[in-house]
C-alpha cells in the first residue's frame, strides 16, 4: 500500500508539472505565437493611456521580456524555493510555495488563494454532507419502492435538481429566503472561527442550493446501482438463508452499491474544492471560485496559473484518496494493489470472497482504474 501511495504521489507531481506547462503555454506562449509581443502584454497592466516608458517599466517588472523558458523556470523555482519581489521600498520574500505575484494587485498569489480556500472548503464540505446523506437516502428509498408514488416523486425531484441550473435555484432561494422572508440574510461570509452560528447561517442557502444539484445526481445513481445490486443472485441467497430484510439491504445491497458512489464523490469533491464558481458567484462567497472568475476577468495570469494548479492538485489528491478508500472497502481492489505474497488470505485466481463486494458495472469515464478493474470481477456467494 505504501508503495502504491508513493507511486501515486510521484505521478501526481509529474501530472502537476504537465498541467503547469500546458497552462503556462496557453497564457504566455500562445499570445506570442499570435503575434503579441511582451510590451503589448505588459500594456494591459498599466492603467489607461500609459506612456511607453510606463509600459517598459511594467514589462521589466513582470519579467515578460525574458525568454519563456526563463519565465517558466522562475515560476517553478518560486514554488519550490520561494522568490524575491520588488514591492517598492524593499524586496519582499515570497515564501514557498510561491505562485508568483498578481499582475494586478501586486500581491503574492498563494496567500490570496489560502484566504479564499476556507470559504470553498466550508461550502463544499457542508454541501457534500447534505447531498451525500439525502441523495443516497432518496436513491435507496426510491429503489426499494420502485414504481410507487414515492419512487416517482423522488425521481421527479431528482430530475428537477439535475435540470435546474445553480444560478436559477440560487437566485430563487435568495429571493425567497433572503429578501422576501429574510430567514437567511445573504450577508458577507463569516469565518467559522469568528462566529460558528453566523458562519452556518450564511451558508445554509449555498449548501442547499449546491446539494440540490448533487443530491439529485446521487439519488439517481444510487437508485440505479441499488436496483442492479438487489437483483443479484446473492441477494436472493441471503434472503433464502433467512437474513432479516434490513440486513440484506444494508449489508449486502447497499454496501456494494455505494462503492461507485464513493468514487464519484471523491471526484466531485475534488472538483468543488478547486472552486464552485457558479455557487460562489451567485451567493457572493469570496472563495476560490470567485477568485478564479476575478483572475480571468483581470487576465491576471499568475492568479490563473495558481488556481489551475491548486484545482488540479485537489482533483488528483481526491482521486488518490478515493482509490485508497476503495481498496479499504473492497477486498478485490486490495488484491490488485497488494502483491499476493503479502496477503495470507489472498487467492489470486478466485477473486473476492465477500458478498457485498459487487461493484457498479455501469460506465462512467471518470472512474478510477481500480474501480474499473474491480468491476470485471464476478460476484461470489453471499457470506452468511
Amino acid at each position, binding site marked *: 500500500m505504501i508503495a502504491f501511495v508513493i507511486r501515486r504521489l510521484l505521478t501526481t507531481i509529474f501530472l502537476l508539472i504537465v498541467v503547469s506547462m500546458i497552462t503556462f503555454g496557453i497564457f504566455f506562449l500562445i499570445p506570442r505565437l499570435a503575434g503579441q509581443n511582451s510590451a*503589448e502584454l505588459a*500594456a494591459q497592466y498599466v492603467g*489607461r493611456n*500609459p506612456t511607453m516608458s*510606463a509600459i517598459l517599466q511594467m514589462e521589466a*517588472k513582470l519579467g515578460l521580456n525574458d525568454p519563456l523558458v526563463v519565465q517558466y523556470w522562475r515560476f517553478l523555482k518560486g514554488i519550490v524555493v520561494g522568490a524575491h519581489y520588488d514591492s517598492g521600498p524593499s524586496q519582499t520574500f515570497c515564501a514557498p510555495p510561491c505562485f508568483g505575484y498578481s499582475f494586478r*494587485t501586486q500581491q503574492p498569489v498563494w496567500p490570496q488563494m489560502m484566504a479564499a480556500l476556507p470559504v470553498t472548503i466550508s461550502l463544499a464540505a457542508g454541501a457534500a454532507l447534505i447531498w451525500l446523506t439525502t441523495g443516497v437516502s432518496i436513491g435507496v428509498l426510491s429503489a426499494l419502492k420502485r414504481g410507487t408514488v414515492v419512487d416517482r416523486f423522488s425521481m421527479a425531484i431528482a430530475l428537477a435538481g439535475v435540470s435546474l441550473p445553480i444560478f436559477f435555484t440560487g437566485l430563487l432561494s435568495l429571493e*425567497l429566503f433572503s429578501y422576501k422572508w429574510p430567514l437567511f440574510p445573504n450577508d458577507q461570509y463569516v469565518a467559522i472561527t469568528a462566529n460558528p452560528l453566523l458562519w452556518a447561517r450564511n451558508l445554509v442557502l449555498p449548501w442547499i442550493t449546491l446539494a440540490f444539484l448533487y443530491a439529485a445526481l446521487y439519488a439517481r445513481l444510487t437508485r440505479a446501482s441499488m436496483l442492479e445490486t438487489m437483483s443479484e443472485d446473492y441477494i436472493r441467497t441471503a434472503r433464502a438463508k433467512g437474513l432479516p430484510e434490513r440486513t440484506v439491504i444494508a449489508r449486502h445491497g447497499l454496501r456494494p452499491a455505494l462503492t461507485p458512489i464513493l468514487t464519484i464523490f471523491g471526484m466531485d469533491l475534488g472538483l468543488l474544492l478547486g472552486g464552485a464558481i457558479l455557487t460562489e458567484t451567485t451567493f457572493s462567497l469570496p472563495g476560490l471560485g470567485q477568485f478564479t472568475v*476575478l483572475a480571468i476577468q483581470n487576465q491576471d495570469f499568475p492568479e490563473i496559473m495558481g488556481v489551475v494548479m491548486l484545482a488540479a492538485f485537489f482533483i488528483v489528491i481526491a482521486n488518490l484518496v478515493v482509490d485508497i478508500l476503495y481498496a479499504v472497502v473492497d477486498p478485490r481492489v486490495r488484491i490488485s494493489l497488494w502483491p499476493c505474497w503479502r496477503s495470507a488470505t489472498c487467492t489470486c485466481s478466485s477473486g473476492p470472497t465477500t458478498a457485498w463486494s459487487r461493484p457498479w458495472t455501469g460506465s462512467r469515464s471518470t472512474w478510477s482504474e481500480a474501480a474499473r478493474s474491480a468491476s470485471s470481477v464476478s460476484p461470489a456467494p453471499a457470506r452468511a
Partner: protein
Amino acid sequence: MTSRRTLAITACALTAGLALAACSSSSTSSSPGGSSSSAGTGASAGNASFNAGVTGVVNPSTKKGGTLTFANSSTPDSFDGGNEYYAWTLNFNRLYQTPLTTYKSCPGACANTLVPGIATALGTVSSNGLVWTYHIKQGLKYEDGSPVTAQDVKYAVERTYDRGVLANGPSYFQVLLADPKYPGPYKDKTGDLTSVTTPDNYTIQFHLTAPFPDFNYVVAFPQTAPVPKAKDTGSNYQLHPMSTGPYMFSSVQLNKQATLVPNPNWTQNEDTEARQLPSKIVIDLNVNAEDIDNRLLAGDIQVDSQGAGVQAAARAKLLSTPSLQKNTDAAPGNRLWFVYINSKVAPLNNVNCRQAVEYAANKTDLQTAYGGPYAGGAIGSTLLLPGMGGFTPFDLYNAKSQPTGDLTKAKAALTACGHASGFTTGAAYRSDRPKEVAGATALQAALGRVGITLQLHGYPAGSYYTNFAGAPNYVHQHNLGIDFGGWAPDWPDGYGMLDALVNGNAITPTGNANVGELNDSTVNSLFTKATTPSYTVAQQSAIFGQIDRAAMAQAVILPEVYAKVLLYRPPTLTNVYSYSPWGMYNYAVLGVSG
C-alpha cells in the same frame, strides 16, 4: 411508458411551480425601462422623488452614527491614491485622502468647480505658464497625528513615477513635468524629482515643460494626496494608506472587504467638502451585481459603489413601482458612449463615407441597446457633455430630429463618397459588454439599410484598447473601420473630454483613445491655442466648443448617448445627490439615518 409520462409531468409541474415562485416577488413589474409618463410622477415622502438627487440634496442630515455599507461587484484598482484611476475609487478615495485640489461638494454642474483640498487655494501660475505654486494648509495631520508637509506631497508625486509598482494611475506628471526619465524614489534612492520643488514646508511648486492651463485639475487626482516617506510600503501601501480624510482604514482584506472608522485627527474646518457622519464604513467587494441590487432594495446595504447603475431586473422594478421610483435617480453618468469611425481605413478615409454612417445610424436603437432613456442616456449629437464648459448644442447629422436615421442624406453622402451602393467594413466591439454587443447588432442592422455591411468582431474588454481597437496597426490590418467605445473625461472640461479623443498629437501605437485617428491641422492648432496661458476659462471653453464642432464635421465619432445611470438611494441614506465629476453619488458626504 405511463410511469415515464407521469414522471415528466411531475417534473414539469415542479419546474413550473418553482419558476412561478421566482417571479412572484416581481409581480408588480411592467415593461423594462418604464414609460416616460410614469417616470416622473412617483409619490414623494419628504423630499424624495424621482430624480430628486440629480438637482438637489435628498435627505439632508447632520446626524452622526450608524454604519454605511457599500458593495461592489468587483474590486478596486487600488486603495492607494497614487495607484487609482477608476471613477468609483477616485470618488471613494475622498473618504480617506485629500489631494491638493478637489471638486466642490454640491449637486449638478456646480460640482465641476475646483476648490482647494489640502492647499489653501487653487494654484497660481507664473506669467510664462510654466510654474504652478500651491501653499498647503498648516496644522493638517495624518491619522497618527504626525504633521502633513509639502515634502510629503512631493514624495507622493515622486512615487507615481515608478510604474512597475504603481501602475494604474494617470501619467500626467510624467508627461507635463520637466524630468520624465526620473525612475521614482524606489529605484533612485538618492535622487530627486527636480521638477517639483518645496521652498518651505508648506509650499510646493511644479515646473512644467509647456503651459498647461488645466494643471489644477491634474493635482485633483489623489496622486497628490500626501504620503509620509517613512510609512510608504510601495505595493503594500494599498493595505493601509495614511489617512488625511475623515475616515481611515481599520482593515483591508483584498477581494473581500474593507472597513473604515473615523479619523480622529481630521477636522471639518480644514476639509469643508467632506463629512464625518457614519461611525463606521464597510465596503464589501466581489458581490454579485444582482445581489447588490437586492441588498439595496432590502436596505441591507446603502450604496453600490461602482455607481454604474442597477441591473436590468432591478431597473424594471424601480421604474414601475412608485414606492421605489421615488428613491431613484436617472443621473448623468459623466460619460459619452459612441462609435469611432476610423479615418484611415478605406473607404472611410473619405469624409463623405464617414458622414453616411453618421446619417444612417438608428440612434433610437442604439439608445435602447444601452438601456433606454433612463438607464442608457439621452441621444447624443456632440462630443462635449451637457453642462461641460464649452458645450453648445448642435446636431450636424440630424441625430435628434431624425433619430431613426436620415437615409436620404446617408445615400447622398454615399454617392458623394463614390460608393452609392454601399461598402463593407469591419466593426470592433467588446464582446463581454452586453450593451455594446447589442449596439453593434443595432448599428449593423441600421447601416444595412443603405448598403453598408458591417462584419462584427468581438474582443475582450481587458485588452480592447491595448491590443485591438487602440492599436492603429491592428485596426488597419484588420480593416476595422467601425470601433465601439466610450469616454469618461479625467476632468470635466473640454480638454479632459476631447484631447485624447480627437487630438492628432495624442495618437499612440497602443492604448490609443483617438481610434478615429483624426489628425486634422485645424483641430490640432485649436488644442495648442487653448493652452495659451493668458486665456481665461471662458476663452478656453469657447475654443473647446470649436473643436467639438470641427471634429464632428470630420465625422470620426458617432455619438450614441450622453450616459445616464439609474441609481437607487435607500431611504436611510442621507445627503444624497448625483455628483457630476464622477457621474455617481458623492461618497464623501453620505450619512445614514435610523
